[in-house]
């Protein structure tokens, strides 16, 4: 006892001990987050503390924009304009999907048979700010769980797919852009239906089609649309345009680079699409099969939206 310092000098554990403790705690969190994704609960709790800051930080820019709007035109007009722009984005999306459907036409109908494209609900949202992370490409939008946004929702703008919602907080959602290194999207060449997977090119701002055979039928200028086979992205949304195809005899895969169709790092207003439900697994039992068939039958009896639109 006589060797311990008096309480006056007691300053807690030595700095090196503290550093070791906090470093181990940080590394544990990093591993839990990167490998196992076990930290979402803690993240959600801490997000409650940071969200007021995030929203307050986004407010001056929004206020400035609003003030500018006021001085350039009437405020009434500007709100109407914003509403109309959102409506236009929605309408353009519908038009694009219709166009893609018409272009693929009879072939798709024959291939897909009774498979019906599920109607997708959309939520317009505004991009608050770019992510403060130089290692990934993300943006934050002003809609969250309170507005019914779910993780995995595809995000589109008026000209194509922008990315995917990867994390949702109460009032905000994080959108990973298509060009992020870890982001992948199943696509299809609109011209011939060739399927591929487009991966983000990182800082280059391009997309890359990987694992496409060197003799695959793809040329510069081909338009890529979502194939819809993943059950997340609705089918037929424009994704990118092929800008460069390199075929190297020493490599079994072609190197295909594409320019995203949407303004991935521009633009302010985006649409969050409610994800298409994952296709049901093939029924195991006999009863389940019956049920599935019944469902299909009731579906086909309903008048199709597609037929109604046909002249």
């Amino acid at each position, binding site marked *: 006892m006589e060797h311990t310092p008096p309480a006056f000098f007691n300053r807690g554990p030595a700095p090196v001990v503290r550093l070791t403790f906090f470093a181990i705690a940080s590394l544990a969190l990093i591993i839990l987050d990167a490998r196992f994704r076990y930290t979402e609960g803690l993240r959600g709790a801490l997000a409650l503390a940071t969200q007021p800051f995030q929203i*307050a930080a986004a407010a001056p820019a929004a206020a400035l924009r609003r003030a500018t709007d006021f001085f350039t035109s009437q405020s009434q007009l500007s709100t109407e304009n914003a509403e109309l722009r959102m409506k236009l984005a929605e309408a353009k999306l519908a038009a694009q999907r219709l166009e893609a459907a018409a272009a693929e036409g009879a072939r798709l109908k024959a291939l897909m048979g009774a498979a019906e494209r599920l109607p997708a609900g959309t939520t317009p949202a505004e991009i608050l700010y770019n992510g403060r992370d130089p290692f990934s490409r993300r943006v934050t939008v002003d809609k969250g769980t309170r507005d019914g946004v779910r993780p995995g929702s595809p995000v589109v703008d008026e000209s194509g797919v922008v990315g995917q919602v990867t994390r949702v907080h109460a009032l905000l959602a994080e959108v990973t852009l298509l060009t992020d290194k870890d982001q992948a999207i199943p696509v299809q060449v609109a011209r011939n239906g060739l399927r591929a997977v487009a991966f983000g090119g990182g800082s280059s701002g391009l997309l890359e089609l990987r694992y496409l055979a060197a003799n695959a039928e793809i040329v510069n200028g081909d338009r890529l649309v979502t194939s819809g086979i993943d059950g997340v992205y609705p089918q037929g949304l424009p994704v990118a345009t092929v800008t460069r195809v390199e075929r190297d005899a020493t490599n079994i895969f072609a190197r295909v680079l594409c320019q995203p169709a949407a303004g991935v790092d521009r633009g302010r207003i985006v649409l969050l699409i409610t994800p298409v439900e994952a296709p049901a697994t093939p029924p195991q039992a006999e009863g389940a099969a019956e049920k599935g068939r019944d469902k299909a039958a009731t579906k086909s009896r309903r008048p199709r939206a597609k037929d109604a639109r046909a002249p």
Partner: protein
Amino acid sequence: MLPDRRQQILLPVRLSTIVVSFAAALLLNFLPWQNIALVPDFVALTLAFWCVRQPGLIGLGVGWVLGLLTDVGNGVLLGQHALSYSVLAFCAVTLARRILWFGLWGQTMHIAALLLLAQAVGTVVRLAAGAEFPGWTLAIGPLVGALLWPLVSVLLLAPQRRASEVDETRPI
């Protein structure tokens, strides 16, 4: 070399000053900056400042919690900033007495080294987790942060410089 003799005797720091400065730093970090490569990490800078000025009060624990908040706010790997701020706080607390011995520019040099170290720790963590290296522009933010050190020193010490009651006969 002796410390700058013109140094003023400061009032004791108020906890509210520290809390408000950290809140302001978080707010500045979350502002919608156009080019994040040029923007310093205000939280790291404020943390380094208080670790140097009040090593008994602000240290690794505060740095770690601020790091977690930054991680969540930025939507990055949880623990990345917590680790880099812990290292930053440790170095700042350890070097606190040495740093204050120098003039403002000498201090700036030390802070540049500390902020670069913190950025390097974060970068190593991300590279280990599989991110691609975004380029050497990563070093610009910490250097800009270090250049802000004189300004931050003046701003954050201002509440401590004021005399609580005005007394003409008192020397300080």
